């Protein structure tokens, strides 16, 4: 069969088959869209590079016995997590800036399914970047051993790996939510970095906001995820509440806006 071939075309085919594309299929498509352009590959490379950035700092400023794999991993994740939300934002906003929303929504008219696939794809990419961060940490620890600067342990506890993975995934998803809500790359990026800072500053300056800030300032509430030795019931509750405000609400509003926005 070719496009210009001779086989007849059914006049009235049953349109209920084939079935709609599965969530897995849509997630694979979104993953592929994240890596099939030069800009997408550069962003992922930049994320790994950010993970590398703090390695020399640890190598040359931290005492040798404290230079264990966990220390390197925490530092590499610090870098990785800076750009992960940008990845989340671009996954959504590029559909508008590059005008691919037209093809995307023609093939999958239920836009919520596209958003769900983007969330799943971003979670997978966040996990991959965390794994890359771990690999960077191993390399840095090895470099430390070769240079004779590191004498800490070669092991890392599973708990910090798990909580840092969670941190990476939720911050990437916050990016997706902001991208869907603001539908504009610079606006979403600026607001993503600005709003929590403004909120944190207000929380510091206005005494009456101190209490609220402990529950809503993600710089405070999500910080225990990167230092899980400090995490308990209250910390989990605070992280959950702040995520409700910074992830669930923008995501719900973003999904609502995405479904109604006119595709240009």
């Amino acid at each position, binding site marked *: *069969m*070719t*496009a*210009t*071939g*001779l*086989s*007849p*075309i*059914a*006049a*009235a*085919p049953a*349109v*209920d*088959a*084939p*079935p*709609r*594309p599965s969530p897995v*299929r*849509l997630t*694979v*498509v979104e993953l*592929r*869209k994240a890596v*099939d*352009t*030069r*800009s*997408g590959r550069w962003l992922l490379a930049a994320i790994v590079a950010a993970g590398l950035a703090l390695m020399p700092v640890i190598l040359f400023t931290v005492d040798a016995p404290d230079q264990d794999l966990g220390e390197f991993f925490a530092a590499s994740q610090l870098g990785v997590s800076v750009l992960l939300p940008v990845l989340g934002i671009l996954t959504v906003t*590029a559909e508008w800036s*590059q*005008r*691919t*929303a*037209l*093809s995307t*929504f*023609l*093939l*999958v*008219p*239920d836009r919520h399914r596209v958003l769900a696939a983007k969330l799943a794809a971003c979670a997978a990419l966040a996990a991959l970047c965390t794994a890359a961060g771990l690999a960077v940490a191993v390399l840095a620890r090895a470099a430390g051993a070769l240079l004779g600067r590191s004498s800490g342990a070669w092991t890392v506890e599973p708990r910090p790996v798990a909580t840092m993975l969670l941190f990476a995934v939720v911050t990437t998803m916050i990016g997706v939510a902001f991208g869907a809500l603001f539908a504009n790359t610079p606006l979403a990026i600026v607001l993503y970095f600005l709003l929590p800072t403004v909120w944190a500053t207000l929380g510091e300056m206005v005494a009456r906001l101190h209490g609220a800030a402990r529950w809503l300032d993600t710089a405070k509430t999500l910080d225990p995820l990167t230092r899980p030795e400090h995490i308990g019931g209250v910390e989990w509750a605070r992280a959950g509440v702040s995520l409700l405000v910074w992830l669930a609400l923008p995501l719900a509003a973003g999904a609502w806006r995405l479904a109604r926005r*006119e*595709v240009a």
Partner: protein
Amino acid sequence: MIEVSRLSKRYGGADAVRDVSFACAPGTVTGFLGPNGAGKSTTLRMICGLTPPTEGTATVHGVPYRRIPNPGRHVGVLLDAAAQHAGRTGREVLTLTALATGADRSRVGELLETVGLPAKAAGKRVGAYSLGMRQRLGLAQALVGEPSVLILDEPANGLDPEGIFWMRTLLRGFADRGGTVLLSSHLLREVEAVADRFVVIAGGRIAAQGTRDELLSGTGVVVRGTDPAALHAALRGAGLPAEPDGTGRFLVAAPAEAVGRAAAAAGAVLLELRPAGGDGLEELFFTLTHGATP
């Protein structure tokens, strides 16, 4: 099969599309004609479920587009060839479409050849494509899911004459095999040669629709005789409104038979008696769409 029933779209207080109804049958090419801003794109977007109509319905194979589980496998759509990621290669665009719809990925290379994007061009990023190449890519993308319906908005834009001829052949072949084609244009010439039916829209409303003959049947006949004066007198005598066109012919708003009988009764010798076709369709298109306001 496409069925559009009393479709309307209001933006603010203004009607972009008002009470538009038409149908496109399998095996036919329908030319959707109208000047820029007449409501063609808005209508096509409503058919494809991108813009919710204010009133009315549109279905493809009896089902609203958004309710088709895997629409890419039934309806090939090209609404805007420029709407592609500049950094993606042509081949990748088709591969993504095949992946998303579950269509056969081995068709990608074949389709690229078919639309005239050989391997070298297909491996280039779309940002480097001319508008004509983007139209070819868009058409290939529409064909990936082996659809039975094609909906194309101004697909001839940016194509050279050879490209327009090629596209006509492709669309004609698609319809001849039983497919349904709806294509829009603001230029009659682009679709005249390929369309079986025409839907003319102006100011958001249907101005006329039908086959070429149906559209022209109202425009009368052209008649020429050996003696223009005698012929004119014969036509007047029979009560037929005859307009001299300045070349010795008369344009008569009456059926050919009535004109022939009037001439025969008066003994006027005819040299020519034909529908006012030729440029008639273009003239009609201009009359229908000119001066219409939304």
